[in-house]
């Protein structure tokens, strides 16, 4: 018991480390499952980054749609990324974070377009924002903010 109290810092660190790993990877897997499922549902709604030109009379309505999300990294992965900094190379833990954020933002944008009854989204753009200046520094919140926006097109029935 004495040893535990003497090394309280280490104990807290270990608890956070294990908790970050267990809960973090569980949450990530769940998020990926939900992303894949929703992507399948919305696959009919086309999203392009090009600007389309439409023959007159085809387009009924057009509107700006946006989707945004802020996702943070867990404690375990942050430690891994710090270690990775020493040797260099691919930081896989951050790659999945960025991937999730972008896909989630696009999905939210698509859901908004779906509600309007849109057939497609043209000129889609992705933007990354930071709320805090030191977003990824030590003792700061390692998080990413992704915004997706585009123009939803509602077609006339032919």
């Amino acid at each position, binding site marked *: 018991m004495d040893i535990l109290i003497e090394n309280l810092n280490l104990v807290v660190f270990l608890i956070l480390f294990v908790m*970050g790993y267990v*809960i973090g990877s569980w949450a990530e897997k769940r998020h990926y499952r939900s992303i894949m499922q929703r992507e399948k549902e919305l696959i009919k709604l086309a999203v392009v980054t090009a600007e389309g030109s439409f023959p007159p009379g*085809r387009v009924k309505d057009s509107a700006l749609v946006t989707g*945004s999300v*802020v*996702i943070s990294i867990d404690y375990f992965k942050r430690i891994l990324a710090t270690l990775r900094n020493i040797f260099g190379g691919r930081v896989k833990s951050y790659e999945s974070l960025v991937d999730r954020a972008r896909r989630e933002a696009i999905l939210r944008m698509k859901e908004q377009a779906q509600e309007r009854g849109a057939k497609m989204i043209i000129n889609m753009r992705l933007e990354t*924002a930071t*709320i805090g200046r030191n977003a990824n520094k030590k003792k700061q*919140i390692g998080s990413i903010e992704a*915004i997706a926006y585009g123009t939803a097109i509602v077609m006339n029935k032919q």
Partner: protein
Amino acid sequence: MIMTNVNTVPGKKIVEHFGIVQGSTVRAKHVGRDFMASLKNLVGGELKGYTELLQDSREEAMKRMEAQARQMGANAVVNIRFATSSVAQGAAELFAYGTAVRVE
């Protein structure tokens, strides 16, 4: 008010240009949210408070842009772009700009 981020309003003809309109807002998160976010940061996942903050400020910026366009007598804003910058620690600026036009 029609808002698009393409050069034209699809299916409609632009009859008049009014030039650039813009709207911006600077928001900071409050301490409570900050604290919750740092807790959430241990296990990862979505920071809902920040997502809301981002959404609110983007809507506010667009509302201001829309007001400016309406003042000019426009009924649509085309080619909308979003930009973000951090002006101070913990505060974010969201900025929207576009071209005000009148369509048929």
